[in-house]
């Protein structure tokens, strides 16, 4: 069973800066735990747009961190995008 049989979050926008625990997976492999932390950064080289210009306005800030889990049938929006 591959990772796409279930899914993580479909979509989350976070635009801030800090150190975050992205995932903690106990007993991930060979009885060892996996933890991935990320250090997000605010980037002001992108900005919001008028809603009429782009349909995914909520993602205007969210290009730096993205998590994508694809092809799970119930993951209708297969992207988690966080903003740096």
């Amino acid at each position, binding site marked *: 069973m*591959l990772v796409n049989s*279930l899914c*993580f*979050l*479909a979509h989350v926008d976070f635009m801030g800066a800090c150190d*975050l*625990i992205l995932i903690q997976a106990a007993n991930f492999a060979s009885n060892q735990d996996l933890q991935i932390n990320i250090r997000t950064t605010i980037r002001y080289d992108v900005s919001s747009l008028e809603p009429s210009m*782009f349909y995914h306005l909520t993602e205007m800030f969210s290009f*730096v961190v993205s998590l994508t889990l694809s092809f799970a049938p119930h993951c209708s929006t297969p992207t988690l995008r966080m903003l740096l």
Partner: protein
Amino acid sequence: MKFGEDVFVVSSFGGYSLNGVSNAELPNTVGGFTVVHTKVSEKVHIFEIQLAEDEKIVLKTFKDMVAVNLDQVHAHRLHASKGMLGNYNTSQMLARNGTVVIDNPNDFAADWQVKEGEEMLFQSTRAPQHPSQCELPEASTTKRRLGETIALSTAEQACADWDVHFRASCVHDVMATGDLDLAAAGAFKITNIRLSLLWC
């Protein structure tokens, strides 16, 4: 990342450290699994941790951005996982206590901020660190408008061969960064079933 007792850190422009040693000799092992480094170009670096024949963790850097794919990783490895990715079984934004669902992304991030006393994993400290809260962007700040450096049509052309599910993200990222190489480099390109995230 911390894998077993090993701490492997990948940063912008292919920078990395293993157990506190910057630019440690690679190939090496992380969590008992071999990690190899491939310098594709000055802009693109790839680090692969092979878990099994068909499973690997792939970390890529494209300039100052970093991505990681859990490529073909089997679901059984993730059922007990938690964090900013949410609950794997329910797709909910679960708080640390495992029961409360937090709908607001900023509140959710605040809950999963690395807390004082927890392992930071990074070699250096950068503000904000808990108990200081995550810094949030000013909503009114505008420095560059999307499309100012690369037109939509140009970005769409650059991303034309991307999977349809991710083409819009590619177009957005190309326009936001103003760098057509992002599409060509494939640092964020999703062509298979995988878990991908990127940051800078």
